[in-house]
């Protein structure tokens, strides 16, 4: 009797006991509100920064009264123009070069004997700490390439950093590329040069643009490797960091500058994600 009661009890309660926490009705609301909180944590500081940049006393933390005086100060002060220009130039160069090289490598990689192993080697820099890679490139640029640290050493560091990302984006398209289209084009009379420009290039275009944008943004935001490789050259983020760290009086200007940078990069990012995810999926 006792035994049968025991088995009866366990058979009816155990599965429910075991699974109950995973059936809790609060998981979905928790996920929803947790997600909303995360979104708030991401976007509120950015919006607050923009708000502060148009406030009279940003360091007080009170938005009102509004004023454009920091923007005026920013445009009156020309010290930031040079690092900003250097950053843009390096980022443009990194974007173009990594898109081009990633396209070349991304087309060749799927046809090699061991694409997986090679890909791993290419992607490893993603997991190498920026400090280590920066230090390594510092030695490489100075003693092996005998480069004067500055614009070109920064460019090399940024390129090494951005290339794996660009390659990944290109590979999404090249690994799925139907080589029979190239055969069809050459069968119809196109030279290999012609079939590349008429068939392969337009079909890889979204990936190439994505790779270039990614390279641009990664270079534009890069600090850690730049510190090692810059010599006396200043890029935008490095200059921002120096200003924020040393002169308190410059901080309001930096708020304005950071807001401008944000307004430039956000649309770029949005465009890139649209290209990579919306356009690529369709084709």
């Amino acid at each position, binding site marked *: 009797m006792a035994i049968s009661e025991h088995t009866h009890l366990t058979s009816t309660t155990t599965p429910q006991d075991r699974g109950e926490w995973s059936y809790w009705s609060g998981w979905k609301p928790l996920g929803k509100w947790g997600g909303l909180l995360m979104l708030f944590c991401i976007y509120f500081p950015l919006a607050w920064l923009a708000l502060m940049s148009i406030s009279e006393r940003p360091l007080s933390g009170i938005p009102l009264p509004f004023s454009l005086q920091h923007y005026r100060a920013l445009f009156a002060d020309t010290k930031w123009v040079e690092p900003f220009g250097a950053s843009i130039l390096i980022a443009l160069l990194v974007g173009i070069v990594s898109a081009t090289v990633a396209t070349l490598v991304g087309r060749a990689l799927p046809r090699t004997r061991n694409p997986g192993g090679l890909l791993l080697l290419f992607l490893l820099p993603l997991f190498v700490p920026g400090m280590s890679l920066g230090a390594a490139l510092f030695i490489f640029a100075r003693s092996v390439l005998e480069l004067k640290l500055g614009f070109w050493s920064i460019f090399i560091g940024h390129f090494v950093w951005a290339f794996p990302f660009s390659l990944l984006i290109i590979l999404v398209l090249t690994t799925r590329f139907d080589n*029979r*289209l190239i055969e069809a084009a*050459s*069968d*119809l009379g*196109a030279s290999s040069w*012609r079939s590349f420009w008429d068939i392969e290039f337009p079909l890889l275009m979204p990936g190439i643009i994505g790779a270039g944008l990614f390279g641009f943004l990664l270079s534009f935001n890069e600090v850690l490797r730049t510190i090692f490789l810059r010599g006396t050259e200043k890029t935008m983020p490095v200059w921002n960091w120096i200003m924020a760290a040393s002169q308190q009086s410059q901080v309001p200007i930096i708020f304005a500058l950071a807001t401008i940078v944000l307004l430039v990069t956000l649309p770029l990012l949005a465009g890139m994600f649209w290209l990579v995810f919306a356009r690529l999926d369709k084709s």
Partner: protein
Amino acid sequence: MDETVEQPILEVVDVLHKYGSVTALDHVSLQAKRGEFLTILGSSGSGKTTMLRVISGLEQPTQVGKLAIGGVDVRGKPPSKRNCTTVFQNYALFPHMSVAENVAYGLKVRNVPREDARKQAMQALAMVQLESKSERRIAQLSGGERQRVALARAAVTRPAILLLDEPLGALDERLRIDMQSELVEIQRALGMTFVYITHSQEEALTMSDRVVLMSHGRIEQSGRPVDLFDRPATLFAAGFMGYENILPGRLTGRQGDQATVELAGGITVRGVASEALGAVGTQAALAVRAERMALLATADGDAGRDGANVLAGTLRKQIYHGKYTDQTVDTAAGTIRLRRWDRVPSAEQVGAVAWQPEDCIVLPA
């Protein structure tokens, strides 16, 4: 047979192609006349697609004696420099171009002025009844429409030879049958030489002027559809062309194109002798189609006296398929399969099967 008079538009002599250690084409030679519809028939792995790729230039053969298109030696030339185009099995249409742009591509790379190219592309699309869809994207077309676009794209440059790699393979049966007759009509209208690859003996028989049957990288037999269907030269050809009954035996006599074979069980029958048949006394096989067989009530009726081959046997199985009925009869020479298209009486007395000597072929075993 004016083959010797007119220069063949396609001439392939002694082509050998290996993928690593695998021989895909084993010293094959092939010719096509101008305006001919030539079908290369074979199962997968027979080398038929490799043959097509060697002709188009997408594959450079390991070794080739002669490879000429329209009298021009194309050995070592890239596909773009050969006067032939391919309709690919998967169509390989350019997804980022419209239907009209796809069709005009061959003209574009030949630097045909834009307006002329457009006009010719529209004519080619009219040929396949798709001019109304010229501005569509490829993704918006059905399988049958894509097939037609691929055909128009390949034919628009008026190549000497059009190569077709199982172009109907991906279509459903109804569409396939429609396209078969349409393809033949287009081929006749253009007067173009078609080299058509298929694994379907039905397609080969329906469409071709000449069929080349390939197996294991070699040409097994080549001839008119009716030759392959009624006069297979080898056991493989007979099996591939759907001969249901292949009975082993021994060649006991040969007179012109007549041969006699002693089957298992000691019965001697007569049939048409294959050219490759060996000497009297060697092993041979007899091939007969199921629908050429008839059932008799007894083995010793009038049929045998009329010159027909008769085998005593008993009906084992009968399967009704609607349009026809398949019957299986056990005889001393082996199991015989029959297919009857007429109405089958439900209760039928069966004592023997019979067939005419001209309906069966004696092959080297």
